[in-house]
């Protein structure tokens, strides 16, 4: 984890200190993926955070780019705020399984643009994801890249326990996609793979990640999936954990 990733995580903790809640584990899990996508995006490209509950990652990256103001960021979840627990930026997401289909529409409308859709692994339980997977390969959307945040944990427990996804790459391949594995926290590896080359098929990057990446307690304790009423003491322990 480089200094920038640490700084972005620190900013997420600052926001949570102000709001006292948020999906910190999901945000820490997909932070490098979000970072990488925004690094390669051109003006006409599109990014959809289909796992909308990871939005704190997107908010801090866009804040760093100057798209989201400090005020809006720190008003997170307040009454009347622009930003809340699920995003409504260019596209609103939060109910799982919607983003990939919208991304298909974006990709069909303009094949010169690259479209990136970030899915959660638990999100792949949704049937709509697989409807979309069939559709994208039918249209040979080589300008469409899916990144799956494969931390292997969902709200209740492991993906293995709740709804087995393996063999995940074979499933996507059998749906007509090119599937590739990558360490979802390895910025250099993600940079090498993005944007995807025009290979005639949609690409899925199975990004192996650690839920809550960066802090021992958020990595190990599933109860941090969505935390509310966070105490001063917990904020302090998050900061200490990040700097450990």
């Amino acid at each position, binding site marked *: 984890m480089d200094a920038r990733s640490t700084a972005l995580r620190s900013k997420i903790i600052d926001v949570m200190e102000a709001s006292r809640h948020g999906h910190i584990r999901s945000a820490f899990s997909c932070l490098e993926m979000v970072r990488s996508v925004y690094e390669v995006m051109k003006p006409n490209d599109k990014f959809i955070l289909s796992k909308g509950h990871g939005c704190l990652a997107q908010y801090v990256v866009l804040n760093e780019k100057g798209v989201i103001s400090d005020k809006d960021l720190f008003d997170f979840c307040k009454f009347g705020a622009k930003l809340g627990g699920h995003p*409504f930026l*260019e*596209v*609103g997401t939060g*109910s799982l*399984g*919607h*983003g*990939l*289909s*919208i*991304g*298909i*529409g*974006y*990709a*069909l*409308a*303009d094949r010169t643009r690259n479209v990136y859709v970030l899915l959660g692994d638990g999100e792949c339980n949704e*049937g*709509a994801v697989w*409807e*979309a997977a*069939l*559709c994208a390969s*039918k249209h040979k959307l080589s300008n469409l890249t899916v990144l799956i945040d494969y931390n292997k944990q969902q709200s209740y427990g492991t993906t293995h326990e709740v709804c087995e996804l393996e063999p995940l790459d074979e499933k996507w391949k059998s749906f007509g996609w090119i599937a590739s594995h990558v360490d979802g926290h390895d910025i250099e590896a993600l940079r090498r793979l993005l944007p995807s080359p025009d290979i005639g098929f949609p690409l899925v990057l199975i990004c192996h990640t650690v839920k809550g990446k960066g802090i021992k307690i958020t990595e190990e304790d599933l109860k941090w999936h969505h935390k509310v009423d966070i105490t001063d003491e917990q904020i302090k322990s998050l900061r200490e954990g990040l700097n450990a």
Partner: protein
Amino acid sequence: MRKTCFNMIYELAKKDKRIVYIGSDVGSGTLQNMKEEMPDQFYMEGIQEQNIIGMATGLALSGKIVYVNTIATFITRRCFEQVLLDVGRHNAKVRLLANGGGLVYSVLGHTHIAVDDIALMRTVPNMTIVAPCDAEEMKCLMPQTVDYPHPMYIRFAGDEPILPFRHVNIPFANIVQFSTRPAKALIITTGATTQLAMVIKNAVIMHIPTIKPLDDKAISIMALSTPKIITVEEHCINGGLGTAVLELLNKQGINKPVHRIGIPDGYCDMYGTREEQLQRYGITTEAIERAIVS
């Protein structure tokens, strides 16, 4: 009416590259001319309503005007969340073409009978609901759907000519017929059921092609000038046109008796023709006449 709608899509799409059609594995040969002549504007997708509605949203957010075609029950129930959160929330220019609104597919049973579609679509903010009554009215409507700034639910009815004139302007109601004698009631109806009211002479008949938003002003004025209001619809009485009229009258403080003719709460659990089902549920000219004098 359906054929008229598709012909209009073809003609409009020839002139406007923004227009896109998405079918969900419907009718072999549908819009074959568009498929051949405008392949970039024609999509025939699988039986995957959720995906298609999301895809339509992405296309619409990219500047396209998207007509999505499938059976009314599937385009409302199966993908309701996509209609609500994707199309509605983004105010996307998606036009939902609903085949078989009402009791049209009665022989196919409860899975295909769409008598809750208006109620469902009324709860979607930004959604406009239109139910033309015949092919000619559809022909008047379609050019207005191109640049209309909100999503639309378009409920198909039959082809038989019903209206004596050709005029649809969203959201204005059409006064089809003034009573030649003192009107005993105001009959408010929509879609194909307008036909049932057309022979009645002692009432004002108001055809409502746009159920949401309602033409508040026209309905209020006419309601104030008649002793009772009768709503007629091929839809459950919960949440449809009758409910919308009741809500409007309540909002306007108009205290008049309202008799709603429609389908009571319960599953449409019988097969048969549309006409047989209309008889079963008392959605008939005779029932309207009885309501006028009761």
